[in-house]
Structure formats: C-alpha cells, structure tokens
C-alpha cells in the first residue's frame, strides 16, 4: 500500500519535457511547410473514380467522396491548418495546435493522475522495494 515518505519524490525531468515541446513546435511550425499536399491514403481511395476540380472537389464520375458533406467547422478560424484562411500560415496554425493539444491533454492527464510520486505500484520501483523490504520503515 502507499507508504508516504518511503521514497523521495524524484525531480521532474523538466529539461526533457522542454526538449520534447521544442521538437513538436519545430515540426508543426517549420517542417510542416515541407509536407506533401497530396491526398492521404484514405482520401485517395474515397476520390477513386471521380474527376476532381482544382480544390479537390469531385465534379464527375462515381466515388465515395461524392457522399461527403461540407465540414461542420469549415468556418473555424483554424480550418484546414491556416489562420483565418490566410496563405502561408500553416506553421502558425500548427504551433497553436501543438500548444492547445498540450494544454488539453496535459491538463486532463494531470487531473486523472492517480499516484502522486509513482511509489504505489510496480513499474520498476515496486520490485526493488520488495527485494529490499528491510529498508522500508
């Protein structure tokens, strides 16, 4: 069971976290400009059989994509990874997306976390505890 104080809460690897965030921001903010603009595998399948106009909308033939509707949030200020629909803002949209995702996911996981310092369950720590029971007071 939980034994508060038997294991010093290890310091958070803040530098590692910061490094992860920088990598994610660079990928979304800079590398995203080099991404392929071709339809992905699923979109290529749904467009198979149709002729497409310049914006990628099906205009002739028969295909799955003809049954797709307009997106409900097509009017969102970040729709299609552009800020306010402006050209060349993919990187900014990506940076915003990374930060929002981090806040939402990180916030949810922080609220959900069950253990304070990882001492309650196994995951490596428990094993050493069982092997050296005499050290536990």
């Amino acid at each position, binding site marked *: 069971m939980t034994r508060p104080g038997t294991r010093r809460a290890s310091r958070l690897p803040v530098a590692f976290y910061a490094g*992860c965030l920088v990598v994610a921001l660079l990928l979304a903010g800079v590398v995203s400009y080099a991404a392929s603009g071709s339809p992905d*595998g699923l979109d290529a399948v749904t467009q198979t059989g149709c002729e497409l106009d310049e914006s990628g909308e099906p205009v002739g033939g028969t295909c799955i994509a003809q049954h797709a509707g307009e997106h409900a949030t097509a009017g969102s200020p970040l729709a299609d990874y552009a800020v306010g629909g402006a050209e060349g803002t993919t990187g900014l949209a990506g940076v915003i997306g990374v930060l929002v*995702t981090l806040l939402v996911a990180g916030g949810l*996981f922080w609220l959900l976390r069950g253990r304070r310092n990882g001492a309650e369950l196994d995951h490596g720590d428990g094993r050493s505890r069982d092997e050296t029971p005499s050290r536990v007071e």
Partner: protein
Amino acid sequence: MHMSDGIVNAPTSLVFALVAVLGLAVCVARARRDLDDRTAPMAGLVAAFVFAVQMLNFPILPGVSGHLLGGALCAILVGPYVGALCVSIVLLLQALLFADGGLSALGTNTTNMALIGTFVGYGVAVALRRVATRSRGGLLLTAFVAAWVNTVVAALGFVLEYAIGGQGLALGTVFGLMSGFHALIGIGEGIITALTVGAVAAVRPDLVFLARTAAPALQLRTQGVRS
C-alpha cells in the same frame, strides 16, 4: 486517415460513436493507474507531438501521401489506455478546430486510429517484448513492427465501416487500395515511431512505458496480491 462526414451512413456513424465512447470510458478508468506526476506531463507532450507529426504528410506514391497515426507510438511511450486518450484528444481537436475529420465521423475515426490502432499496436509490442528488452535494436524493431501493424489495422477498421455503411466503390477495390496504401504508409509510421521511441529511450528510458513494464505478468500479479 481522417474520414469526412457522410463517408459512411448515419446509423454506422452512430454505432461506432457508441463503440468509441465505451472504449474511451474504459481508457479513462484504466489510465489513472498509469499516470503520475512524471508521466502525466509526458503524456500531454506525447499528444502534442502526435498532433505535430500528423501534419507531416509524406509521399508514398505519385499523388498519394500518408501521415503518422501514432497509436503504437503513444502506447509504447505512455501505455495503451493513456495512449488511446492521447490520439483521441488529437482527433477531437483536429475535428473541432482544424476541420480535419468530420464531427459525425469522430466515432469511426476514434475507433480506427485511437482504439484499434493503439491496442493492436500495443498487443504486437507486448508480443515482441522479449525482443524489445534485449537490445536497443530490438526496441527499434519492435516499435517499427507495432507501428506498421497499427497503420494497417486502422485502415482495415475503415474497410469494415465502409462494408457496413458506405457506398460509391466496390468493397474489394476499397479493401485492396486501403491495405495497399497503408502497407506503404505503415513503413513511414514505423520509421517515425522507431526514431521517436529510440530517442526517448536513449535520453529517458524510464519514460518508456513498454520498458518500465517489462517484468513478466506472473510476477506483477503475485506482487499485486502481496501488497
């Protein structure tokens, strides 16, 4: 691999929305035990990383691209339950803010990428755990294979949903194209996953869920009874 609204009919969308909600409810309940002060921020960063890398479409054939789905990547780093939640949050924000993936398709997209991809990918990683814990190369190979399978099974999830409630193209053609394209996309997913898991394992091996939980299941169970 985000479906738009209307790709499958409303009843099918509804059924898979229920599947997704039930699956995510289980994940929320089980994620608690995998989250602590150190892994909660890590999981948030993993979700942000998946969002970023999903923007990076890479070409697989002329006129066809693919991007990371991220299920196996998340499962190996933060566990399958937390991992499925990471991918789900990314899909939700993409649909709400970026008009990427239909709102009515959130159930099917979540089922395919967050649930099927993550849990099957994690199953492969667990099956290969002895390889993964033997050496760094074994870990990279495990990550690659788990990620490749994750991509292909997520694509097959779409084929299933299309078979139930889609129209416009012969089912055999959909199956052939989806599995063919995603066998190729899976190679990219595998490389990205192996590079990422390898990088984390090199710097902070204690933050790799698969490596942390490498003890045999029997030992864990005995320990659970004891404590």
